């Protein structure tokens, strides 16, 4: 069917308005649910870093979060304070945004109240290549950080190696993803070294 160019333009414009409107409608309708899912996923990752098993059901997760985690803010940004089952202080979790190869890597680091024992690390979101840099969000990588000592007198408390880790401060980097690994290491080391100087550990700021 051949019509004038004007008709083609009008047709596409109308189609775009109609379908654009429909998609916006669906987006509006699902926005709240999507946001809830995003918050729940983030909370699960924070609990994972702290070494607390996150329940799968949204209600149980919200309850556990309300009972054991409090969201605080200090001079260096927001952080979380968590208690163990008996109510004693378990540790603090600090969100971070590290540079990746393709985009920002968002994650969270949890530290024991002494300020120099890592409780754990988890990745919330990243845009690294699936199967290569993307493996930084896999358990084998993140679980390595649990229980590591942070020697804040060193500029690089952790050493990322491309082999089986031997020394206590060594972490196995992602082979085949040197860009992601070295960027991540370059960010996380100063970040960790700086953590113990934060107010919460010195007994100073925001309680």
């Amino acid at each position, binding site marked *: *069917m051949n019509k004038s160019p004007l008709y083609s333009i009008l*047709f596409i414009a109308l189609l775009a308005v109609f379908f654009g409107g429909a998609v916006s409608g669906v987006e509006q309708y*699902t926005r709240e*649910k999507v946001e809830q899912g995003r918050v729940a*996923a983030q909370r699960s990752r924070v609990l994972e870093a702290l070494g607390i098993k996150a329940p799968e059901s949204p209600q149980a997760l919200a309850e556990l979060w309300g009972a054991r985690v409090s969201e605080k803010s200090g001079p260096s940004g927001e952080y979380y304070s968590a208690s163990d089952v008996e109510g004693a202080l378990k540790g603090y979790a600090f969100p971070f945004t590290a540079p990746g190869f393709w985009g920002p890597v968002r994650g969270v680091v949890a530290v024991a109240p002494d300020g120099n024992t890592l409780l754990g690390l988890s990745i919330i979101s990243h845009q690294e290549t699936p199967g290569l840099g993307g493996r930084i969000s896999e358990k084998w990588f993140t679980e390595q950080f649990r229980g590591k000592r942070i020697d804040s007198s060193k500029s690089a408390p952790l050493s990322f190696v491309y082999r089986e880790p031997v020394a206590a401060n060594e972490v196995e980097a992602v082979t085949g993803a040197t860009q992601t690994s070295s960027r991540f290491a370059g960010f996380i080391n100063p970040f960790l070294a700086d953590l113990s100087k934060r107010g919460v550990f010195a007994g100073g700021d925001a309680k």
Partner: protein
Amino acid sequence: MSTIKAIRKNVTLSTIRRGIWDENPVFRQVLGICSALAVTNLLANTLVMSAGLFFTAAMSSFTVSLLRKYTPRDVRIMAQVLIIASYVICVDLAIKAYYPEISATLGPYVGLIITNCIIMGRCEAFAYHNPPIPALLDGAAAGVGYSVVLLFIAFWRELLGFGTLLGHQVLGDGFARWTIMVMPPGAFFMLGLTVWLFRSLLPPERRD
């Protein structure tokens, strides 16, 4: 009258049969391979992806067909992509809202349904020249054809790779998991074997 009905029934059946078997998008036309490799290591993910593709293929064909008399030839591809993209974004939003965990593991693949050649192919080859109901059937049949092959691949990959089906333990602890099945190379092995198996079931003159 009854002959017309019989012919209609015949055409309907052959449309469905063509999409699922004779011209199966995956093992006959070898389309949609990217996602066939990427989302088949867990049955649950494959089910969600298949449902998404089924819905998009059927609805896009239906809509393209509805608008076929008003769509100028020179902008028909633009119109088709717009229609497909709208349905895919809706599917993506629905999965994000109701299955956030699955959405995270499927990653960009739901969004990439937009460029899936199966849907574009059916819209361009069939829906643009046929009435809405046959177009809907044709799109749906292509969706089923895709889903059947993907579910078949995912069944074996999850079973052998994790010893589970839909997350339930099926094979006992004594079973040594074939880890390679859930890794990318396993996808290539399974896809190759599947195409070979299904093609060998076709009569020799149609194997080309």
